[in-house]
């Protein structure tokens, strides 16, 4: 099927590339279908594009590349909702609020996007403990990863 996207114009995707968010996301409860694609062949940015709404897309990264020690305890309720049976089926991203200059860009570590890659089910998991917030600067992590890489 062909879909219109915010960053890549019209693209052809397979049914199997659609991730179902049965309850939407906070603020977007009626958006239940997304597809996740890299923004570019290089770079850390992943795009979570709404199937229903071309103008709606989130920019995401893998938090583990940027925030050393980031860890999330998935609840039984979440595992059940996403029908997760194997650890290997889990993919996890965090949404960026991109700002210019890039140093002002923040990652939402309190509401990671958790995906069951096998069943194609996704959910924004809201952490109830106070260890992570909705805004964490990438700057330091980015600088060091650039130096290393």
């Amino acid at each position, binding site marked *: 099927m062909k879909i219109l996207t*915010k*960053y890549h114009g019209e693209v052809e995707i397979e049914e199997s590339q659609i991730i179902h968010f049965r*309850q939407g*996301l*906070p*603020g*977007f409860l009626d958006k239940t279908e997304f597809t996740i694609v890299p*923004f*570019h062949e*290089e*770079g*850390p*940015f992943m795009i979570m594009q709404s199937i229903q709404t071309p103008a*709606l*897309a*989130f*920019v995401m990264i893998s938090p583990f590349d940027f925030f050393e020690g980031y860890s999330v305890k998935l609840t039984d*309720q979440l595992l*059940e*909702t996403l029908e997760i049976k194997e650890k290997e089926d889990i993919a996890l991203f965090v*949404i*960026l*609020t*991109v700002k*210019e200059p*890039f140093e002002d*860009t923040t990652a*939402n570590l*309190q*509401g990671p996007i958790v995906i069951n890659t096998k069943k194609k089910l996704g959910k*924004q998991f*809201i952490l*109830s403990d106070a260890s992570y*917030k*909705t*805004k964490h600067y990438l700057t330091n992590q*980015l600088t060091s990863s*650039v130096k290393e890489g």
Partner: protein
Amino acid sequence: MLVLTRKINQSIQIGQDIEIKILAVEGEQIKIGIEAPKHVEIHRKEIYLSIQEENNKATNTSIDLLRQFTNQIKK
């Protein structure tokens, strides 16, 4: 809004399967126990609202900016 007065260990039943119980009152803080089916999501309101707000802010990234940052990181 329906307003009810409760004492410690008293509950409120909402529908068939949700119970909210007052467990303790310590100064300005109130401890509340909630029994609900697993599919019912329970969040501290301010956390839910901050996630909602951040999601809304996160959807305004221009393609030019993303291109620029992708190049910046590559270097």
